[in-house]
């Protein structure tokens, strides 16, 4: 075989290895529930549904950053509100996302009218993160944070900590932080604003 061919095959081999490394970096998404399923589940008992979209003022963003260390950077946030026949608020839901090195983690968080957590559901992760997050879902991890408000204690409980290895705990903390952010956003944009209802 000529030297030219050897060089060519060597180059091709190197490119194939590099392609494999690049392709292996991010895995496809795993969608566990549609938005409608999550909203219907977390707003159960509601008869009428509303969308409330809110923007944060610079002062509100600064206050959230100071309170939690999180810097909200979306243009606006969307709450889905469920009301009864008389128009009284039953619950609210918001979708929160964190982008990790393994891809996005998206969680739907249900909140009671007083801003306390009603429940949470992981709606989207990636193939790679799924085995780490599954033990948390199996353990119904969100149960441990029900009833907490924006200033609650959002650290891993012993039960969640025991659910899996360090990666499971890492993703547990990511999800728990998303639940807290939802509570903070509701507190800031719904409860603390004069026109809230």
């Amino acid at each position, binding site marked *: 075989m000529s030297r*030219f061919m050897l060089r060519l095959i060597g180059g091709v081999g190197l490119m194939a290895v590099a392609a494999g490394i690049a392709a292996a970096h991010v895995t496809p998404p795993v969608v566990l*529930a549609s938005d*409608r399923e999550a909203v219907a589940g977390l707003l159960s008992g509601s008869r009428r549904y509303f969308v409330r979209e809110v923007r944060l003022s610079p002062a509100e963003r600064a206050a959230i950053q100071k309170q939690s260390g999180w810097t909200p950077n979306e243009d606006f946030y969307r709450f889905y509100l469920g009301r009864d026949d008389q128009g009284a608020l039953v619950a609210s839901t918001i979708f929160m996302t964190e982008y990790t090195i393994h891809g996005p983690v998206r969680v739907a968080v249900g909140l009671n009218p007083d801003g306390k957590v009603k429940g949470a559901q992981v709606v989207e992760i990636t193939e790679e993160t799924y085995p780490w997050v599954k033990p948390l879902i199996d353990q119904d991890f969100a149960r441990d944070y029900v009833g907490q408000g924006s200033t609650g204690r959002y650290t891993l409980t012993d039960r969640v900590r025991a659910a899996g290895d360090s990666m499971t705990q890492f993703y547990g903390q990511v999800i728990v932080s998303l639940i807290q952010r939802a509570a903070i956003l509701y507190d800031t944009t719904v409860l603390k604003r004069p026109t809230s209802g």
Partner: protein
Amino acid sequence: MNGIFLNRLPLSGKVFCTLYLVGIGCGALAAFAQAATAVGLSPGEVRASLAPDMPMTHMGHGQMSREKEIDLGQISTSAKVWIRTPLLIQTSHTHLFGMTLIAGLLGAIFLFSSLGEGKKTLILSLPFLGTILDIGGMWLTRFLWPPLSALVIAGGSLFALGYVLITVRSVYEIWLQKELSA
């Protein structure tokens, strides 16, 4: 090229090229299925995943809050993958490297085709152009104009067309074409 053509490769070279082309074809089918199930194959579905999220309430630019009654039916039932900017960055860098390397390997094989230079140049350019159009279309959809999501579909199709042409012609030359004089 350099007097070496696909039909003159040693058996090991022929098997290598053929298996590589078959393997990439299987990968392309899997990628197609992944795109179809996770995002969708129409420009509208691509736009829904990539375009900036617009307020459902038609909240104006300076408005701080707005509320509107909806029907649950207005919320998507299809599992929706949201490709926001951080994920777009991740997707872009992995796909630009991965797809360009695949296009490079396909092109490297096709360099030894006995086709004329003009046709060869055109065909081996297709996967590269498809890659640029595909990933570039994602960014343009997100930041310039949502209807440009059609470019993502066009780019993927161009990549697939290039792959098919390269594979069909290469396999033909490797296994069926009679020996050419140098």
